[in-house]
């Protein structure tokens, strides 16, 4: 038992951190707001760095890595607030040609419940997609994203995640069966948790540096226990959730160590909670400035909300956990 990063894993984390610092500084992220959150050249850079082909065998041009590693990579992408259908394109690699290499931007949507009783589908990044995947109980379906009759939403919650509303989806071509769909649900939840825990950690750093430099009553606001305790609680949420998310990665790599469904449901729940609560607390620490568009704090909590709704929101995962006790 050795539940910390290996030297190789630390090196991988460092590589992704550098990639994000180089390709996705906050100025770039904010500029993507006018370009639907996805920019082809940057998408290619992610692909070239291997972000979408982590699990593919080396013979297929991938890195042959496990889920412990992909969780670390996605945590860094979350920390840097990198937008786009990262998880879907990663899942699609190996099934949809061009996903792994970044030639195609592949998005997706989960379809739940019986036909006719489905609520309108909210599809992320539709305008930027080359392919749309639909995940349901029966399998994975590939849909021509251009043929989806969807209305763009004028004011998406997350300015970096534009959404369309579609009443129904065109019939697609089945690209994988129910087993793959089930595996995707687990892996998708694990990687989304990793993005969420990255967000949860990023806002701790942001809020702490602000609390050290912002002065009121002739002293840094971080010296006041009322503020300090908010920040300590943020740290606790991020650290506890991170342990759960790393455990989810370890369970995917070695299902023999325990209940993988429980590990992943717990991770998604803890990470979703941590990212949402920390995102709000970060705004609170920033006070009135945190409520302005110009300060980045709102982008984190909005992204957390987007990510909480996919691959099982907090309430659904809590119900799933209850059944597994």
């Amino acid at each position, binding site marked *: 038992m050795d539940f*910390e990063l*290996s030297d190789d894993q630390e090196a991988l984390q460092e590589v992704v951190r550098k990639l994000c610092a180089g390709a996705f500084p906050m100025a770039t992220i904010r500029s993507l707001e006018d370009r639907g959150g996805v920019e082809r050249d940057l998408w290619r850079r992610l692909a070239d760095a291997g972000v979408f082909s982590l699990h593919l065998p080396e013979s297929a041009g991938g890195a042959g890595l496990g889920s412990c590693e992909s969780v670390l990579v996605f945590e860094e992408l979350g920390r840097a607030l990198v937008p786009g259908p990262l998880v879907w394109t990663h899942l699609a690699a190996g099934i949809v040609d061009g996903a792994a290499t970044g030639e195609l931007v592949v998005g997706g949507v989960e379809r739940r419940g019986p036909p006719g009783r489905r609520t309108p589908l909210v599809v992320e990044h539709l305008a930027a997609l080359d392919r749309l995947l639909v995940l349901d109980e029966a399998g994975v379906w590939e849909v021509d994203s251009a043929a989806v009759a969807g209305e763009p939403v004028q004011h998406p919650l997350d300015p970096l995640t534009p959404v369309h509303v579609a009443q129904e989806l065109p019939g697609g071509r089945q690209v994988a069966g129910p087993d793959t769909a089930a595996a995707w649900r687990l892996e998708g939840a694990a990687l989304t948790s990793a993005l969420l825990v990255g967000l949860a950690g990023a806002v701790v750093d942001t809020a*702490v540096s602000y609390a050290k430099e912002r002065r009121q009553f002739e002293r840094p606001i971080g010296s006041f226990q009322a503020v300090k305790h908010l920040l*300590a609680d943020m740290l606790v949420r991020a650290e506890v959730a991170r342990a*759960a998310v790393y*455990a989810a*990665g*370890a369970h995917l790599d070695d299902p023999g160590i325990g209940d993988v469904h429980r590990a992943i449901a717990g991770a998604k729940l803890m990470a979703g909670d941590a990212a949402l609560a920390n995102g709000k607390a970060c705004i609170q620490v920033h006070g009135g400035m945190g409520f302005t568009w110009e300060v980045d704090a709102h982008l984190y909590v909005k992204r957390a909300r987007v990510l909480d709704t996919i691959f099982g929101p907090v309430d659904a995962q809590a119900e799933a956990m209850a059944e597994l*006790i």
Partner: protein
Amino acid sequence: MNLRYSESEERFRGELREWLDRVLPTVGPPPAIDDWPGRRAYDTAWQRMLFEAGFAGISWPKELGGRGASPAEQLVFLEETERAHAPYVGVNFVGLLHAGPTLIAEATSEQRSRYLSPILRGDEVWCQGFSEPGAGSDLAALRTRAVRDGDDYVVSGQKIWTSHAEVADFCELLVRTDPDAPKHRGISWLIMPMDSSGLEVRPLRTIYGSSEFSEMFLDEVRIPVANRVGAENDGWRVAMVTFSFERGTALVSELLQTMELLESLVEIARSTGTEGARPWDDAGIRRELGHLAADLDALWSLTKRNVTQASRTGVPGVGGSVFKLHYSEVRHRLGDLALRILGRASLSFDDVGGARSGDQVHGWVHAISLSIAAGTSQIQRNILGERVLGLPRER
């Protein structure tokens, strides 16, 4: 990042499991919660059994009579003893987990050879005399005074929250030896025999209704200078050596116990209810139960990260404060939810209507102590804010 136990860790598990299966049937049920002589006899007898089987002082170094187990093996030990419902460390807590490790780190070889082995054998029980009525969260403000008189210190003052004082043989005592020095620099760490004259122990009744700890009144108690551990006036540092430990692994067996408490609560929620409605049929209640399970699982994963860090660096990290803070909060939520599920069965510490409701009611009270004992949640937040996040101190 690997959660799988190694072959040698699994071998250790097998050996321990085999021994537990063999000896536990010979161990009777624990005595009543307020039967202190009975509890001492029960807990020390179990400690003696562990000692004879080579499982005492699992983390203590081999050359001092311990097992020298790795942190991962310590986790295996806690997992297996909890799984088998073996007795808890009980009255041996201070000796094994606090005073003992302090002596290992700071005592002279004479002191170690006098005191360590009787702790491992279950022959001697220790208690802790740190807090005072005027020195709680601000422990370094303690005022119990020790004045040198020849080969003795003459000690007067008052201590509080001393667990197991009625049945202890020795007390790890913090005293003020230099009232003129800055508060952290005038403290010394002494070993006080509990049969010293001038020492009076008065049990304190807690909100359980029983006596979990005592007050100690010291009136010119003579303690030999030879009983001082570490240098005179260096007692604060000596005490801090093992403080982070108290906040770290000490709660691990409790965490495993809490997972069982949650399972038991799920059983109650599924099987009881008034007027035909089971609490389990309420989606809100189910979600809260599921949420608690996720929190407990995450704390267990965090424990494994903490343990790995401890074995890589040799010292417990800040993970202990993170753990304690979140664990206390989870226990509060679990306790509150349990009482709502129990309804009016929560009006009794004893089981009501055939359900194991008493454990849940005790758990609710226990949560209240968890966010206070060994550093309140507010103090833990200060520690995290100042020592981990680097925020400036208040004032």
